[in-house]
């Protein structure tokens, strides 16, 4: 039974985004670009500066795993069963040739899973260009200097590999394009603050997934169209409770949909595939383009890997207030240690703010069925009772 209360018979036109997600990684746009002689690089974590690749004429695409829960025989064999199912899923796709068009893979030393995924990608799946950036875990000036140095090394490595200079002009153009994308996504999220948002959480995730799987120029064009459509749309969604989803990497709109089917409306999130991907723009502020890029990537809405965690907790609490959130669903992939360690600390802070948390142990790609569904249902009932 669909509990989502929608005041319109209209439905959003998300066809362009769905077409990209439905065929990724072998999407038409990517394959066409390859055929035209363009290079496509895969990146593994939001601490990898996409603008640098884009300024070199490369299409950066985010490496993600299977869009549904899948047997991960190869992933288990190569990364062992105790690495997160996201890493295992990505590696299995790589091993099976799903990303065989990649001209390069770039990672950051962000968590154990990500750096070992990169190690094994490098060892078993040969790509012409491989690079890993050391990503500090602090926000100090010294940490910013180190990360900038890493960004310079990355740029120089790319230039040597391509025999091509990445100019400041090119970086400025890329910054402008990526900032535009961030600004458009911010506009989309503003609509989710409404009492009756015109777009659901699962639909938003479909848009977000497409954002790192296609050329930004095209994505921005489609997103502008969607925003125009939403501006005149009569669609209004309301549900029993306004929810926020936090935790590990997640690309699965079906998971969000299953929550929304049970009476929740996901109005915001703290995921590296959504808010943490787009939230902060690159601000030049008198800095060189590369300095500005590196500063943005290190000080962006933080991953649980960063220390102190208070910065992340504060921003989550701010989102709770801004989006009038009734409850938080923390979904943590098994063996995603940074988020698992933070959970007791975050839950305590949310509790102090009067916000209940539902903590779910999940596998990457889960559609949110079975026991998860039962637990979400109980959580929704609890939230409903609190409202009375």
């Amino acid at each position, binding site marked *: 039974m669909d509990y989502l209360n929608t005041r319109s018979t209209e439905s959003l036109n998300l066809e362009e985004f769905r077409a990209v997600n439905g065929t990724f990684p072998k999407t038409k746009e990517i394959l066409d670009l390859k055929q035209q002689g363009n290079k496509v690089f895969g990146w593994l974590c939001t601490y990898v500066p996409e603008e640098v690749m884009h300024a070199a004429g490369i299409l950066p695409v985010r490496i993600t795993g299977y869009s549904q829960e899948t047997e991960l025989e190869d992933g288990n064999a190569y990364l062992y069963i105790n690495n997160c199912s996201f890493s295992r899923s990505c590696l299995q796709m790589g091993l099976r040739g799903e990303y065989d068009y990649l001209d390069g893979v770039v990672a950051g030393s962000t968590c154990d899973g990500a750096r070992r995924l990169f190690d094994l990608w490098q*060892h078993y799946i040969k790509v012409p260009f491989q690079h890993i950036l050391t990503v500090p875990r602090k926000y100090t000036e010294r940490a910013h200097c180190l990360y900038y140095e890493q960004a310079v090394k990355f740029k120089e490595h790319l230039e040597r590999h391509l025999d091509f200079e990445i100019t400041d002009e090119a970086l400025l153009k890329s910054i402008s394009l990526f900032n535009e994308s961030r600004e458009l996504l911010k506009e989309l999220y503003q609509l989710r603050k409404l009492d009756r948002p015109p777009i659901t959480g699962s639909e938003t995730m479909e848009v977000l997934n497409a954002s790192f799987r296609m050329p930004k120029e095209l994505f921005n064009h489609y997103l502008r169209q969607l925003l125009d459509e939403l501006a005149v749309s009569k669609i209004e969604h309301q549900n029993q409770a306004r929810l926020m989803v936090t935790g590990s990497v997640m690309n699965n709109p079906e998971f969000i949909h299953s929550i929304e089917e049970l009476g929740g409306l996901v109005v915001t999130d703290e995921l590296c595939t959504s808010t943490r991907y787009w939230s902060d723009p690159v601000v030049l502020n008198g800095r060189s383009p590369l300095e500005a890029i590196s500063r943005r990537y290190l000080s962006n809405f933080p991953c649980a890997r960063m220390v102190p965690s208070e910065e992340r907790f504060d921003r989550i609490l701010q989102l709770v207030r801004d989006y009038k959130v009734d409850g938080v669903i923390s979904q943590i992939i098994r063996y*995603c240690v940074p988020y698992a360690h933070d959970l007791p600390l975050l839950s305590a802070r949310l509790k102090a703010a009067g916000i209940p948390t539902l903590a779910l142990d999940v596998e990457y790609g889960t559609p949110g069925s079975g026991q998860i569904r039962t637990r979400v249902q109980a959580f929704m009932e609890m939230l409903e009772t609190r409202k009375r």
Partner: protein
Amino acid sequence: MTTAESRSEIDILIRTYRLLARMNRAQNKGGSSHTLYFQLLADYYTRVRNAHEEGKLLAAHTVFFPTEVLYAMDIVPMHTEMTTWLSALFLREQAGLLAKGAELGLAPEICSPHRGVAGIFALNAIPRPDIILWSNLICDNTAKSGELMMELSDSPGFFLDNPFQNSSGEMDYLVGELEDMVHFLEERSGRKMDWDRLSEMVARTNDEIDLYREIGELRKAVPSPMSVMDDLELLSADYMFPGQPEAIQYLTHLRDELKGMVQEGKGAVTNERFRLMTLFIPPMYLMSYLEQLFEEYGAVSVVEPLFTLWSEGWLDPAHPLESVAKKSFLIPERRSMYGPLGEQALQDIIDCAEQYKVDGAIYWAFMGCRHTCATIKVIKETLSEVDVPMLTIDCDIVDPTINSEEEVREKLEQFFEMLEDR
């Protein structure tokens, strides 16, 4: 648990180590490196117990933390993982600590030593530290455990950010981090860093590394002179006493014992048949059992490349803080476990297999250590290039409910039979 009770837990550790030292002295007519090791640990925990009474700052720290800096400032270090699990093993409190960790909301996939550390802090079962020090060396668990410890003990803390790769910029970053830490410690302790003392410790660390390398060379002998029980003691000499006279005293004693055995042609086991490479650490609670089993089958661990193979290079006492930073790139665990996993790390495994005349390898796949387990397949394939078979045993290094003696015996027996057939 009250402060008095938590003090009694440390008292139990002290009493246990003194008893072990006495028993060992009696058995070995005057003592062995084991006797010395037990006595040194008794002294270590006596310092932990008396720190506050003596007006000293007690610093709880995670594994692979550069405690030379603490020793140089007369701050008393308390190794959280070692303290937690030594006391848990002696008092058979593993289940209670893990249950407390679970009660705090820590998922079972978080490595058990760190769930236990959170548990012991929540139970106030060790002396309340004045400060918490932690770093990302060696994994996400160490990086993420400090803030919860700070909250549970209501203590201030410092996180030391250890860069991933070894470049001059990253080395400078780490030195800067260490400088910040020294300032933090000076503010908290009201004492100034004694740079001359730190230089002495750095000089002594060179001697320590030299001894580690010498011991490594002696273990190449056939038969090999060191037992599986010695492994943990060997590692903890640097974990607990880096650059300290105690480390030199223990390692010298061990080196001399091994040298004597090699000269006499004596091995760690009576009839050496299988020379093994150990990858990661066997479950701590099975150590005595494994020693018996290895004696029964004539098996001996001759090399542990993830833990005992120091990188090339020396430290410079004239630049003590830079040397402390450099040491973190020399330690064996850095290259093989923390990464990046380069060709050199794999070549080292091959070199070890050949130089130590290894017949087979055992990978203790500790489920809590994700980044180490991710290398199992690569290392197995690497070893197969030099015709060394590898057995992988899933385990937990501290939780005794995961592996039974029978199960481990069965797997090892099958492996030894296979090695015999070869």
